[in-house]
């Protein structure tokens, strides 16, 4: 009833207003990243399906996503995966080992690992985006 009364977004904003702590924020971000990644998995399979049309068809599709914009989006994608994975691991550890009291500490440990992953990803992907720009082509496949 609570959910119906406040609706989808109203429920979430109200939940954060009532419990403004890391547990609520991680719950909300876990849901958002989960829904985004669920949509992504279907888009990813759709792009890979171009292989049914043979190598030319696949190379054409994969060429369109190997450009500076998509390299930057890949950082966001890996960020969403890393957050969802690390927070999911935190939830699993908390559930399976009955250590609910430690959930906030686990969140901050997960968050530090997440930041390390994001920095490492940016170090790898930003030069790739610039590499494409330097070569002046979106479809640079050697």
């Amino acid at each position: 009833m609570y959910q119906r009364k406040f609706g989808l977004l109203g429920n979430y904003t109200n939940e954060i207003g009532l419990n403004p702590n890391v547990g609520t924020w991680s719950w909300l971000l876990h849901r958002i990243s989960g829904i985004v990644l669920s949509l992504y998995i279907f888009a990813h399979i759709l792009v890979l399906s171009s292989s049914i049309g043979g190598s030319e068809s696949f190379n054409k599709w994969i060429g369109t996503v190997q450009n500076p914009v998509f390299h930057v989006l890949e950082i966001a994608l890996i960020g969403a995966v890393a957050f969802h994975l690390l927070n999911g691991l935190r939830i699993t550890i908390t559930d399976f080992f009955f250590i609910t009291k430690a959930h906030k500490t686990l969140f901050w440990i997960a968050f530090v690992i997440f930041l390390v992953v994001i920095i490492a990803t940016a170090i790898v992907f930003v030069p790739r985006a610039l590499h494409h720009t330097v070569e002046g082509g979106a479809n640079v496949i050697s």
Partner: protein
Amino acid sequence: MAEKLTKWAAWGWFLQRITAILLGFFLIVHTQVLHFTPNWKLDFNVVTQRIQSSSLWVIFYGLFVPIGLFHALNGVWQVLHDYRPNPGLAKSVKVFFWIIGLAVSVWGLVVLSKWTS
């Protein structure tokens, strides 16, 4: 009926965590091999060479796709279930998700087979 629903919800909760652990392994390997490598420019031949280099890759992706789809659809289902849809709608959505999950899993295997032949 209520007991049956609770049992299913418990399995959904449990399998979501088991698939999460498996996906953690799959995603780290997949990302490492495809993105965090000097040879990051992909084309059909690069993918073919990698998948045909070992039958373990076929098993890897043959499991990765259905497990990923289960985790995704079960997760979305759990989000929707929080809004307490009426039993008829809930059943329809569950059946729809199972059909989509199974169909896309089979489709994923068909796509994978293009690189193995």
